[in-house]
């Protein structure tokens, strides 16, 4: 089967897609078959502005290993920023 748990979260920020920059309000995180990446399964993140319809989305498909590295990088960058990132 193709489908595993989706973990949605509200986000505040912007993302750049084919139509340029847009505000995004949600991120759906799930581990599933990718559309494009050459792996059987990937960690997928859809940054979305649901008010723009299905096309209001910036998507990434990452190998499990690189997704874990990304989590570590995000945490490291936030920690290094100190008080400014609280």
């Amino acid at each position, binding site marked *: 089967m193709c489908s*595993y*748990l989706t973990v949605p979260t509200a986000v505040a920020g912007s993302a750049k897609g084919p139509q340029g920059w847009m505000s995004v309000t949600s991120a759906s995180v799930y581990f599933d078959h990718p559309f494009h990446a050459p792996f059987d399964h990937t960690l997928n993140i859809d940054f979305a502005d649901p008010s723009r319809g*299905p096309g209001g989305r910036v998507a990434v498909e990452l190998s499990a290993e690189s997704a874990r590295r990304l989590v570590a990088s995000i945490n490291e960058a936030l920690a290094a920023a100190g008080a400014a990132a609280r």
Partner: protein
Amino acid sequence: MPAPEEALGAANVMISGHEGAQLNAYEALPAGDGPFGGVLVIHHLPGWDAGTKEITRRFAAHGYNAICPNLYARQGLDVDPDDAAAAAREAGGVPDEQFVGDAKGALEALRALPTSNGKVGVIGYCSGGRHAFLTAVSLPVDAAVDCYGAFITGTVPDGFPLKVKPIVDRAPRLNCPLLGLFGNEDHFPNRDQVDELEAALKDAGKTYEFHRYDDAGHAFFSVDRTAYRPEAAVDGWQRIFDWFGRYLAGD
């Protein structure tokens, strides 16, 4: 018979689906006057993608009128297939009743083609494998192929966004011979779930043929994924064309 030199034409067409909804569909037709059998190709959960359209062309190259409707067309006819798939996934997939209505429209489009021999089959991959079975227990078709469709049997685990239920209890209503192709390393469906489907078909006295491949898991036909297993895929394609050759031939 395959079209000469595998010649074919392909185009995007509009068909009427469930409750008259307008759907876009990818249609591939063999060169020549026919008559040809028809094949309804059901895409997998990732949507109306390039891989499934390539499969659709493959049937035309082998002498079948083939059509692949966009089951996520309600997300918008001009929406990129990957965006539509993500939105459909968020929505829990496609309701069974809606799917059957869409399949009915696609089968009618196949039968209405001037080169049709009146016979139609259905094939689906992944979630489309379950849809192929659902088609064959709901609508008049002449042959069906289920490629590793999950949740015909078994139970959908908690937390899955896909809102589907097992439908194995409908096996007695199967309208046509069913070919099943499965990977023994697959988890959805796993071996026990394939066994359960086979037992139900046997109990109902249905014509079926199952082939299970070692060293193959889910999506072993997908040529652009590491799941691709050439031995299983090559044998599987041979089985598919033998099956449709047997049940969709005719003038």
